[in-house]
């Protein structure tokens, strides 16, 4: 596209053209109105003057007869800038006046008409136009009084000229202004396009130029920059995740492959093959679990699970999870206790159960007290080997917390711990995908809440804080009187 082509395609230029047309039409109609009114005014003036003179001269004729009339006419006709006068006999002979020739048939008509004429003393052959009134006097004589329309024509000419000029000025200024504005806009848009093209080519660090005027283009550029910022952050996150996936999935895959290879190479007994295959299946199950956890996180983060939410008491979830994990905790030498108060939420029960299960599994895996730390007193409430699941309502939030008395997570590592695949050094040796906290955090976010990691001195308190169900207490209260009604 040529530069000019681009210019005339800009919105600014097209708008200019539209406004140009509008202003031209406006100017034309204004001048037209002006011209028409002036013309009417002049015509009115002529008619009034002519009418007055007509009655005057008719009067003279009545009082002084034909002689008086001719005398008066001749007299008046000689004055400079005189009106047009003509008196004819009943046969049509001109006997007085300053009119040399007229359009045929004018003298025969009665009343007002517009006609071409020529004065008696005029040499040129050019016709003028006049507005004349013809009336028959008594005895068949006819009198014409009229006025030249030159003035009216000149005035009209002036208006037309003014219209032409103003139109020219409007067009020139408008086009010039349009081109100026369009080029300015075009330059900035071109700058933006250039940047976006660089970004599309893969350079995510590019940002749009922002001017100082704070106009709409600047605001657009600022917003686009904020969007680019977000996209860059997301891309970085994605890259990190895919790097982590590559690492965390490649390692077990490689192990799997090596094991299979080794089993093939060694000509072992059937039992060897069998155990190699069984280990292979175990490893692939682990991989599948990791994939499932990733999918679950992705789904929670994308908000798809919002469609599957209902009302329930998170305390039930806490009790259910405690019941499920209590034997496991006991096998690991810990106790799992639950403390609940009504905690009404609106959410995805399945996901919240899983999030809480992940926190409990973490506590069982990593929450063993360090040998160096003296227990708070075994057997007592809050003993060092106790894991506490707590569900309660705290103002607008429902808190689902899991507290252990293990080594905890240093404050500096806490935000890091929630990230995908992150397994803090202490836990590297333990089995697990490193996705437990990520999923819990994603589930909390899905419900409009957050995962809080705190210190339980010593130990870790991981809390899912999600908004309580609105108006839950009212509804619970309202349910009670319903029961007898249902029975009846």
């Amino acid at each position: 596209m040529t530069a000019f082509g681009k210019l005339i395609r800009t919105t600014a230029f097209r708008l200019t053209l539209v406004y140009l047309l509008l202003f031209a039409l406006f100017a034309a109609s204004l001048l037209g109105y002006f011209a028409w009114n002036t013309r009417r005014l002049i015509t009115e003036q002529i008619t009034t003057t002519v009418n007055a003179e007509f009655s005057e001269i008719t009067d003279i004729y009545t009082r002084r007869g034909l002689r008086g009339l001719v005398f008066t006419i001749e007299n008046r006709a000689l004055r400079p800038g005189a009106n047009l006068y003509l008196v004819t006999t009943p046969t049509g002979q001109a006997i007085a006046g300053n009119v040399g020739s007229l359009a045929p048939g004018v003298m025969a008509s009665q009343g007002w008409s517009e006609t071409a004429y020529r004065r008696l003393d005029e040499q040129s052959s050019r016709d003028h136009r006049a507005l004349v009134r013809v009336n028959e006097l008594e005895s068949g004589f006819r009198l014409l009084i009229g006025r030249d329309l030159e003035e009216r024509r000149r005035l009209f000419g002036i208006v037309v000229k003014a219209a032409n000029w103003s139109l020219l000025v409007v067009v020139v200024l408008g086009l010039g202004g349009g081109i100026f504005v369009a080029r300015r806009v075009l330059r900035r848009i071109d700058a933006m396009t250039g940047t976006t093209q660089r970004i599309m080519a893969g350079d995510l660090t590019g940002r749009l130029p922002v001017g100082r005027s704070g106009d709409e283009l600047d605001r657009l550029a600022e917003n686009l920059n904020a969007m680019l910022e977000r996209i860059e952050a997301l891309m970085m996150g994605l890259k990190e995740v895919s790097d982590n996936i590559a690492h965390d999935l490649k390692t077990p895959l490689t192990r799997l492959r090596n094991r299979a290879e080794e089993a093939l190479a060694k000509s072992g007994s059937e039992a060897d093959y069998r155990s190699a295959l069984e280990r292979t299946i175990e490893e692939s199950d682990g991989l599948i679990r990791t994939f499932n956890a990733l999918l679950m996180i992705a789904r929670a983060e994308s908000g798809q699970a919002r469609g599957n939410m209902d009302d329930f008491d998170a305390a039930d979830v806490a009790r259910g999870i405690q019941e499920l994990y209590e034997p496991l905790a006991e096998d690991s030498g810990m106790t799992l206790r639950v403390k609940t108060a009504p905690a009404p939420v609106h959410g995805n029960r399945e996901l919240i159960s899983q999030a809480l299960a992940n926190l409990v599994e973490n506590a069982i895996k990593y929450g063993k007290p360090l040998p160096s730390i003296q227990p708070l007193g075994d057997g007592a409430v809050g003993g060092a080997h106790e894991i506490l699941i707590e569900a309660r309502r705290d103002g607008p939030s429902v808190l689902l917390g899991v507290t252990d008395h293990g080594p905890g997570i240093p404050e500096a590592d806490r935000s890091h711990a929630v990230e995908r695949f992150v397994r803090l050094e202490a836990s590297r040796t333990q089995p697990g995908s490193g996705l437990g906290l990520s999923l819990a955090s994603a589930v909390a976010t899905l419900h409009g809440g957050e995962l809080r990691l705190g210190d339980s001195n010593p130990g870790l308190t991981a809390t899912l804080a999600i908004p309580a169900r609105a108006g839950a207490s009212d509804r619970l209260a309202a349910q009670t009187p319903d029961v007898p009604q249902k029975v009846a």
Partner: protein
Amino acid sequence: MHEDAGRAMVTEISTSLTAPDRHMRLLIIEDDRESADYLVKAFREVGHIADLAGDGEEGLSLAETGDYDVLVVDRMLPKRDGLSVIGSLREKGNRTPVLILSALGQVDDRIKGLRAGGDDYLPKPYAFAELLARVEVLSRRHGGPAEETTYRVGDLELDRLSHRVARGKDELTLQPREFRLLEYLMKHAGQVVTRTMLLENVWDYHFDPQTNVIDVHISRLRSKIDKGFERPLLHTIRGAGYMIRDGIR
């Protein structure tokens, strides 16, 4: 104790499950040729008869005409979606149990699948042992006897009404959840039940625990019902799950 039960291998279980009266006729509706062939072969190896349909239309017409014990239906099929095949069968009054296979292994998808008329739902990728266990449970549910009030395996007896459990002459005391666990196992006596099936049916959770939480429950139950008895009834099936069964049939 784990080691004891661990010797019960998959192959042993496969043969034991395929006594002549336990042949199943299966229809697999799956468009991925490779996994479909694998399934047909695997089912045949354990003694079941499996037919194959490559798309929704073919699957529907086969399911309508053939007399199958269980249908295994993939959700995404050419020509006709898996859910629509199930819906259309159910509309015509066909009650054959359906197990839905799907790559969309999420809670919502499972609920959608069950609502459409499916009886069970298994997300891909799955272990064949899991699929086999579920299909066998489905076929039993379909053709099995009406719900009994007392389950018996060997000298173990469970009364579902009075919640009493006894082995031989000894009365056993079980926690409510242990009772439900045993009840589920005994309902499917002689069939493999997987850890996922237990988690789903006894606890009503549909997620993968990252730990061996079910195994711990089983070992507790085992210590109550098998400890001190000569013949163990609760067996671990390596790579698949658990089974309650009297050693001598």
